[in-house]
């Protein structure tokens, strides 16, 4: 299979931005239940800015990720701004400056992003955050790739795992972020950040599938 090219990576971000736009109110409603009712607005503001930035095409994946990360950091604020921003900022160097990413490099870059999120936010698995969607997704991705699946198919597995991870946040009692203030009352609500992260992984699966040779 071909490497993931710059076009596909841009399509990933555009697809993610489109799902965020579509799910904006749903994300905000999830945040209203256990937070402060702005996660949809935050992600939408950020991803719109990222897409706007794509009008001057980046030179390579590293530049794309750095630009996206910096834009998110600059335009979102709140918890999700630094976290999503750091995610992409950390992906950039992990590409090693390649013009297109082979599946392993892509997976490694995603893993670096996750590590950035954890370094920044100190969340552990089970804290009811975006980490609970991202971690199982990248674990599934790695497992599928090492058992020889194509990237497209591995990303489909990752997306399914992200969805499961997202769903699994519902019964959790939050220990990080704004929802942690609610204590036991945070249980029974799906985490908004895990929900947007599931959209991020799904968008990757869609974009790579569309590259057409998965």
């Amino acid at each position, binding site marked *: 299979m071909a490497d993931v090219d710059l076009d596909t990576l841009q399509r990933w971000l555009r697809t993610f931005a489109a799902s965020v736009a579509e799910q904006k109110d749903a994300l*905000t409603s999830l945040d*209203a239940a256990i937070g*402060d009712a702005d996660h949809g607005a935050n992600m939408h503001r950020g991803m719109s800015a990222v897409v706007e930035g794509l009008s001057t095409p980046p030179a390579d994946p590293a530049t794309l990720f750095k630009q996206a990360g910096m834009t998110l*950091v*600059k335009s979102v604020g709140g918890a999700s701004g*630094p976290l999503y921003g750091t995610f992409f900022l950390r992906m950039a160097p992990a590409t090693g400056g390649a013009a297109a990413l082979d599946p392993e490099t892509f997976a490694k870059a995603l893993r670096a992003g996750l590590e950035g999120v954890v370094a920044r936010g100190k969340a552990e698995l089970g804290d009811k955050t975006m980490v609970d969607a991202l971690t199982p997704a990248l674990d599934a991705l790695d497992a599928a790739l090492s058992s020889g699946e194509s990237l497209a198919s591995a990303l489909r597995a990752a997306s399914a795992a992200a969805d499961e991870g997202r769903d699994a946040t519902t019964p959790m009692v939050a220990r990080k972020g704004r929802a*942690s*203030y*609610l*204590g036991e009352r945070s249980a029974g609500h799906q985490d908004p950040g895990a929900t947007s992260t599931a959209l991020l992984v799904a968008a990757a699966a869609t974009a790579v599938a569309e590259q057409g040779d998965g």
Partner: protein
Amino acid sequence: MKKLLNDPANLVAESLRGVERAHPELRIDHENRILYRADAPVSGKVGILSGGGSGHEPAHAGFIGPGMLDAVCAGEVFTSPVPDQMAEATKKIDGGAGVLHLVWNYTGDVMNFDMAAELAAAETDTQVEAVVMNDDVAVEDSLFTAGRRGTGAAIAVEKIVGAAAEQGRSLSELADLARRVNDSSRSMGMALTSCTVPAKGSPTFDLPDDEIEIGIGIHGEPGRRRVPLASAHDIAGMLVDPILADRDFTGGEGVLVFVNGMGATPQLELYLMYNEIAALLDKAGIVPVRTLVGPYVTSLDMAGCLVSITRFDDDMLRLWDAPVATSALRWGM
């Protein structure tokens, strides 16, 4: 949703234009959404920076001025501002003695201020210290979570540290003082109603007519528990008891009691609440020597109140009484 605005997306930007027109003593960098003293940077003085999401007016811009803050960064409604803003503001108010970041303890604010400090360190040689304010006793298990929220105590911290900065104290002295005021403060809030975030357009939570939320924050987030609507007398107990259980407020130079309106609660009710609160403090042998009653840290149009108590030592009390000239707190000048 019924609000005085044009487009929710432009609410903060247009409001800042109004602040600029109304307050010639402030400067505003609209691109970066930084509000700062017209005389910034004050040479030789440590710059004091705070800020946070919008929707808490008069916090934060109402506290800029001689004797309090040098600058604030304004975020979107209930959303922490971003590191670039904070780094830029840090530059603007660096008078050569460093800049103190007074950070309200929310995950977003803390992470963004962290990144701002990293940016500032990378770009300039400005000395930056950050103190996180976390006074809200509603948050239990704070060691295993995002910790206690920064709520009402910030006013005491910002006022006292701002006065000390005018005296020429050093960055590390001010950071210690900020921590001392924060450690001496505890707060607890409640809501009668939810607020409505303009971008969402409907109340953040539904609260039946006969129930209230105890242990709320200042972002319209629901509280720790929901209880039946109670009398002011009983509500005062629900707020004061956990505060007194968490810290000793007797002795020293007495306490500051701050009864904060969440936005839509009439002052008539806030003073009635203060009457109940003061009676409870009397009984506990705690002596209020200064009082602040009014909407200073609001949650848009939420009805309810937040009680914040700070135990003064003599340094803190003197600094609280020192002159201050901001649009929301002013005396002595």
